[in-house]
C-alpha cells in the first residue's frame, strides 16, 4: 500500500507518518505533499492507495484537490480521508459528496488516528 499525506505543516505530516510506522499496516511507501497541486502531481506519477489530506492549505486546498480528483475520475479505488481542524457540518457534508471515507478532526490522539487508518485500510481490502 502506498499512502499520500497532504498537509502544509511538516510537523503534522511527520506525526501522521510516525503513527503509520507504528501500526501493523503493510505499507510500501509513505509520500508527502505540502499542498493540493503537489499532491496531484504525485497521484499522476505513481499509484497511491490511500490519501490523507488537510483542508486549509495555501494554493490548492484539500477540497479543491478532492474535487479535481473526482472530476478527473482516474483513481476510482483511491481511499480518501480528510484530516482537518474544520469539523463543521457544512464541511462534513461537502466531504461526503466527494466520496471521503473517513473524516478526522484535529486535534486527535495517536490512538484515534490509528483507528481511522485501520478503518481506511479495511476499505481498501473490501
Amino acid at each position, binding site marked *: 500500500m502506498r499512502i499520500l499525506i497532504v498537509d*502544509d*505543516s*511538516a*510537523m*503534522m505530516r*511527520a*506525526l501522521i507518518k*510516525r503513527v503509520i510506522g507504528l501500526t501493523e499496516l503493510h505499507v510500501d511507501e509513505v509520500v508527502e505533499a505540502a499542498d493540493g497541486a503537489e499532491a496531484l502531481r504525485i497521484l499522476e506519477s505513481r499509484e497511491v492507495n490511500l490519501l490523507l489530506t488537510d483542508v*486549509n*492549505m*495555501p494554493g490548492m486546498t484539500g477540497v479543491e484537490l478532492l474535487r479535481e480528483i473526482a472530476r478527473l475520475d482516474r483513481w476510482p479505488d483511491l481511499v480518501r480521508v480528510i484530516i*482537518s*481542524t*474544520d*469539523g*463543521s*457540518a*457544512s*464541511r462534513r457534508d*461537502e466531504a461526503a459528496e466527494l466520496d471521503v471515507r473517513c473524516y478526522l*478532526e*484535529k*486535534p*486527535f*490522539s495517536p490512538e484515534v488516528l490509528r483507528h481511522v487508518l485501520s478503518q481506511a485500510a479495511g476499505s481498501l481490502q473490501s
Partner: protein
Amino acid sequence: MCSAKLPDLFSPDVTAQVAGAIASVAEKSFFAEAEPCDRARFETLEAASAWLVATVQFREGACAGALTCTVPHDLARTLLDAFTGRDPLDAEPDREALFDLVGELSNMICGTWLTRMATAQAFTLSRPVVEMVSGRPALKSAGATLVAVNDLPLAVSVASLGEDAAAAGF
C-alpha cells in the same frame, strides 16, 4: 452573512470558549494541561526571553478575523517534543520546525474554537504567519485568553478584521 452562532468577538464568552479550545488541543495533541489564569498570575509565570507569535486569519461566511497565539520559546520546544514524540534530551530542533509547530498550534486552536462556535458553517483559515520576538510581548487585546500550559504562559487573542477583509479574502 456570518453564522448566527459567531458572537461578538470581544464578549467574555469568547474568552471561555477559546480557553476550552486551548485545553482540548493541549490535551489531545500535546498531552499538556492548560489552566486558565488571570493576568497577575500570567505575568509571574517564568518564561524564556524569546517568544513566538503566530497569527492565523479566518473567514466564516462574511466575518473575518485573526487569532494570535503567543508562546515562549521553552514552551514551544516542550510542545514540539510532546507532539512528535521526540526525546526531550535530543538536540534543539531547528527554527523552521518550531515555527511550523507554533503555526500548527494556532491553526488547531482557531479551528477548534470556530468549529465549536459556528458548528454548521464551514470556515477558511489562512496559512499561519509566525515570528520570533525577544522579550515578553505586550498583549494587544484586553480580552486575551491567558492560560498556564504545564506552568508556562500561553496567550491567545482574537480580533475582528471586519466584513471588507472577509470579502477581499486573504
